């Protein structure tokens, strides 16, 4: 399909040539059910005959050890934390995501850098700085934003893996208990996502529905994207 386009300068020392695959990003709050949807989408796309690759946040071999150590010690300042995540992101983008796209894969990314910008700006990091840092990021073909209300997030988490320190934003010291902190923190995150939904053209999907219904809503724009490619490919010269 098209030449790689980036939000900023990208990787000027490398020419990636044409990327024949598609980059599809799933964004949304903690506990919204992203990983379940990624699994379902992957199975569906593979049934349709597409080669699929999925990639999550904080998975790069380069930085995962350092990031985990830092998280358990709480010693990193907000700018340092932000850069650590960016290094991890850059590593995965350059060494995993882009090569997969070159090879024609549909890449399902469980989150991208948008959540990082949201998280960082709530911790006093300059928002413009964080956005420009991610000038290295490839523009996805599709950004699907699973938007859920706070009550449904709370219910899902409490009946699922429980509330955790980081997802509740306890490090911000906005409340003295996990529940109140989670509610306030996620409301602030939602606000950030709403701003970015416009900035980056997210396709918003109502994630208050049951998983099957969400899945159907996610499939529609994906079908449209992939169908466009098929018809384009068949066009006579």
């Amino acid at each position, binding site marked *: 399909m098209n030449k790689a386009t980036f939000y900023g300068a990208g990787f000027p020392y490398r020419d990636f040539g044409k990327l024949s695959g598609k980059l599809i990003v799933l964004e949304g709050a903690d506990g919204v059910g992203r990983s379940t949807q990624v699994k379902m989408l992957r199975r569906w796309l593979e049934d349709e005959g597409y080669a699929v690759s999925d990639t999550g946040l904080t998975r790069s071999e*380069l930085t995962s050890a*350092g990031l985990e150590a830092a998280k358990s010690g709480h010693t990193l300042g*907000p700018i340092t934390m932000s850069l650590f995540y960016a290094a991890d992101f850059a590593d995965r983008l350059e060494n995993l995501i882009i090569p997969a796209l070159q090879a024609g894969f549909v890449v399902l990314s469980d989150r991208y850098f948008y959540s990082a910008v949201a998280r960082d700006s709530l911790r006093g990091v300059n928002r413009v*700085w964080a956005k420009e840092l991610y*000038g290295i990021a490839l523009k996805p073909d599709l950004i699907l934003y699973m938007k859920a209300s706070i009550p449904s997030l709370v219910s899902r988490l409490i009946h699922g893996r429980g509330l955790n320190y980081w997802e509740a934003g306890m490090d911000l010291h906005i409340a003295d208990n996990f529940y109140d902190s989670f509610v306030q923190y996620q409301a602030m995150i939602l606000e950030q996502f709403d701003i970015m939904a416009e900035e980056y053209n997210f396709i918003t999907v109502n994630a208050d529905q049951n998983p099957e219904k969400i899945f159907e809503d996610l499939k529609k724009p994906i079908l449209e994207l992939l169908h466009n490619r098929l018809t384009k490919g068949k066009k006579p010269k």
Partner: protein
Amino acid sequence: MLRKNDTKGKLIVVEGIDGSGKSTQIDLLYKWLLGAGYSVYFSEWNSSVLVKSTTRAAKKAQSFTPTTFSILHCTDFADRWENSIYPLLKAGVIVLADRYAFTAFARDVARGVDPEWVRKMYSFAIMPDAALYFRVPLDIAVERITGARASLKYYEAGMDLGLSDNINESFKLFQGKILNEYDKMVDEFGLTMIDGTKSVKEQQKKVRAIIKKILVGFEGLPNPNKSPISVTNIQAAKAKKGGSK
């Protein structure tokens, strides 16, 4: 693109290619300032404990790309910035840095990252009160390094750029590119150029004259027992201990 120094402290940095003699000069300056009774803190490039474990592994595996190399060095800098350099400047300390953001602007751009992107990445940092650039011709610097050291390291020699299969040749080509970037920054950031071919003593005389001017009327943080400052990140030290068990 660096912020103005709005702290009570003074920030003095030395820059230059490998073998320019800057570390010798800042060491002499450090001892002189300490002896004069100032509160002084010294910070070295690429020295944060938490980041080191990551960079060490990646260097060993030679898995850096120019971008990850660049971001991780900024992470290292940010860790030192947030935990020691900035709070100490706020307190009125004279902070000396052996290499600063300009090292990244020179090296990372020589590696091919976008000059504006890397400058913006470091924009949380302050423009130093003195940025001393020790300039030596390429041949002299290369001779100093290759003569003094048994072998060059992979990234230090810029082997990742594929400039040459010969490590000494690659080092020379890479340092040449870096030197070129430094020279461009003299005007851009107003770096103070010091002739690194002069004798150590002559250079130090010039350095002290420059710093004296900067310190006219400077009070700074009192240093009652004339002791040096060291910042220990307690948690990081603990983590390191635990890891080595």
